[in-house]
Structures are given as C-alpha cells and as structure tokens.
C-alpha cells in the first residue's frame, strides 16, 4: 500500500482516476496546478486506487493525502 501525498500547496486541476481503477507504475492520477505549472501526480507502484481524497477544484496543502494505491 502506498500513500501519495501532495509535495506542495496546489489546486487540483484534473482528476484522472477513480477509486477502484487499476493503475501501473508511472500512470498519472491527478494533475495539480501550482506556480502556473501543471504538475502531474504519478503512481509510484502498480495497484488499485483504494482511496481518492481529492476532487477537481480542491486546494491541497503540502503533505495532504491525495490517494492510496493498494
């Protein structure tokens, strides 16, 4: 199980997966927007999206949980 957390304060611009989706290592889960950059959040392991904690338009703080890959 891998927790994926925000590395910086950002807006959630796009959510590309849903809970229950299978993902591979390197897949884009969510795209954040910060510093006027679109920053993809990638899966670091293959697995299933167990939890998805953000929705488009949310603001995440550094360290906030974005998703859990099981």
């Amino acid at each position, binding site marked *: 199980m891998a927790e994926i957390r925000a*590395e*910086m*304060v950002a807006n959630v611009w796009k959510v590309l997966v849903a809970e229950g989706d299978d993902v591979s290592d390197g897949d884009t889960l969510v795209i954040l927007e910060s*510093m*006027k*950059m*679109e*920053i*993809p959040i*990638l899966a670091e392991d293959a697995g299933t999206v167990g939890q998805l904690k953000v929705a488009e338009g949310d603001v995440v703080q550094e360290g906030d949980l974005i998703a859990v890959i099981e």
Partner: protein
Amino acid sequence: MTVLDNAVLGQQVAPQADPRDPQVRLQALFDDGTLRPLTAPHDRDDSGMLAGLGRVEGVPVVGFASDPRIQGGALGSAGCEVIVQAYDAALRERVPIVGLWHSGGARLREGVESLHGVGRIFAAMTRASGIVPQISVVLGPAAGGAAYGPALTDIVILSGDGRVFVTGPDVVRSVTGEDVDMARLGGPEPHSRRSGVVHMVTDTDAEAVAHARRLAALLGHQGTLRLRSVTDIDFGSLLPESTKRAYDVHPLLDGLLDGPAGTETGIVELHPKWAPNIVTALGRLGGRTVGVIANNPLRLGGCLDALSAEKAARFVRMCDAFGVPLVVVVDVPGYLPGLGQEWDGVVRRGAKLLHAFAEATVPRVTLVTRKAYGGAYIAMNSRALGATKVLAWPTAEVAVMGPVAAVRILHRRRLAEVPEDQRATVEAELAAEHQQLTGGLDRAKELGVIDQVISPDQTRTAIARAITEAGPARGAHSNIPL
C-alpha cells in the same frame, strides 16, 4: 586470523570465502589481481580493518574495508590508524579513495582511545576533501563514527542491507522510548527519500560496489573531450507544446551525454529520489567526465526550493573541487514560495547555490530550454554568477516572471475594471505588449546575459565546444557536506 602477504591478496579468494571478509570485498572493488595491501601483513590482526591500493578500470584507487566479523566491525584505535594511513596514501598518490563500511562505530572497550581514533579519521577525510575524490559504500550497519565517516565523504552509496544512523534502535528505545526498527531508522528508504544522507541506494552489495567503481573511474580518470566524437541529436520534440505542461527531464539528459542511464557510458544520477525537482548527475560528454544539473519540471514544477538548492550547491562544489565541468539545464518557474519553504530556510539554503556557482572556476555552460524566471534564473548559473557560456533554445523565456503574471501585477487596477468575460483576452494582449517591451530573448542577447540562441539539434556540439574553449580549471576548496 590468517596472515596475508602480497601474493595471497592478489589472488582470487576461494568461492567458499566469507562474503563479509574485507579482503573479499576489496577484491570485488578492484580489477582482478590488482589489490596490494597498504599496511604490513602483521597489521591484519584484530584491528578489523584492511586497506589496499588497487585499480578500478585501470585507474589507481585506494580502498579500505572494515571487518564485521570482529566485534561487529567496531573501530578501535588500530583500525582507525589503518584508515588514516589509507588516506595518507591516497593523498600522496592523488588517487580516489573508496571506503567499504560495515561497523558498529567506536569500540566501547577502548573507551576514549577509540573516540580519539575515530576523530583522527574525520580529520584525515577533511584534509583530503576537495583534493582526492572520496566514495563510501555502506554494506551493513554503520553507526556513530561509522555513520559520520561516510557522511564526510563526497558520495555515499547504501546497499540493501546497509544502515546508517547515529545510534541503533536499542539505544534509541532506552534513551527516548521511541520504538523503531533499523530499516526505518537508517535504511535505504529514509536515507534515499527523506534525509539525503546517501546519494545512491542499491538492492545488492555487488551493485553498490559496481556504482563505486563507476564513480571512481568517472572522477579519477576524467578523460579528454574529443569534439569530433560528439554527434548531435534533435531534442526539439522533447518539450511539451504547452509551456505550462510538466515533463520529465531525464530523457533530455540521457541524450545530452554520451549514453543513457544504466549503460556503460551513461549518466549516474546522485540523490535521484531526494529533492527530485533538481537532477544532479555525472556522466561523459565526448568521452570527458562532466556534471549535469537540471531542473525537473515533473517534480514541484521544477521549482527550486530549500532542499534542491542545497543538493545542487553541494554537487556544484564537488565538481568544481575536482575540475569536472558543469552543464546546467534550466527550466525553472522560480523559487517555491510559502510558509513551509520560509520556515525550512529557503533563503539560507538557496543562498548556498548562489555562493557555489559564483565561486566555481570550472567551465560551466548553461542551457535554457524553457523558463528561467526570477531569483531562480540568477541561481541557475546565470551570466551574472560567472557562467562560461549561456545558451538558449528558441523556446526559452528569461524574465522576472511569466508575462501573464507580470501584467497581473503591473496592470492590476486596469484589469480589475475589465468585465470578467473579457479579462483573459485583455490579459493576453497586455502580456504580448509586455513581451515586446521587455524584449524577451533578443533583449537578453543584447544585454549579454545569453550568448547564443541555438537550435535544439545543435545542443551537444555547442555545449562541448564551449567546454573545450574554456580550457581546464579547478576550484581550490574543500567539499564540505553542505
């Protein structure tokens, strides 16, 4: 304990030999049959330390290894003396030195005498700092003095079973009550991602030693840049169309140097998972060792922050100390602002990168591929800091900030009066006007902060030529582990 002489040390150890035997470990480090002991044979008693001179890809290198079978490899005064002698030899011969660590720290039984010995190792390492490359490979638990030893060296490699900590879980539990296991306290995961204590982690000892060999050869035999052997690659298609889109910089770096990561001539990335928004790597260009520093837009948008500035500063100073030319690949939207960064000391740590570049005398060539904004533009080896040459792709933007962000500040009142549905259009118009006024790349060229705008398919030769024209240089300073 077997008494060994030169002839025995030079031979292959029998297959049933103990893999923890320092002789076996040193033989794996050196080219076959090249290990010669540095200490007299009778010194290999119970000191738990073995030192030798050998060759790595033909390059002379000094190595030493602790013996975890004797008191867990703990350092007594005799063992410490072996390491100090190894350092004296490396300095005398001006060759890289590689330490293979597996040691519980200072010997308790010897009391302050062992502490004094460990301190002498630290002093020897500091004396050699910036003069000869120092590489540490941690193959087992390395605590206390055995942790700070590697930490004082230029590059630390941690094998799967390696652990680095001030003190182990038992003492931690008894003094603070914290319950934590060895791997979480000082294993590959925390040190590769969180602490930055180690530069590389590997699954196996064999891989760790192979990395040490590669790095010793890169730093010990830097070679000559053969301009004629440098062929160009078109990097034009590597950048995404949208300037806001993040991308991974690694494919660009793989193409920029002589071979991709993982190959014999490929780049060796240091600290790949710690502060990954900046990439620091060694590799070869036209056969010559170079160091590469690159923003990676995939992580934190490529912003500089406290950790990445500190990581890059240490790398710049290491390369400068050993005369390794630098290639700086810039795509940076700025220094990351905010509470977390300020409290983390982004100003103090960011200043280290400014200092490191400004004092560096080694040839250092900057390539701006896309964004170079604000304070981060200055920090990424700008002309003002003394860059040898600043190259830019036609896609480069050099400015205090992006044009839209700039007009939102400059024309805040006027934009506030514009109805919301028209605001984006007006912003775009003002941004275009702002670009013309501030001049973009042409103005940067006029000012001399960019020397040359090059097509992406000329990148390799342009960088190689700039390094060649600059000639060799080397900073005269130590490499403090910043």
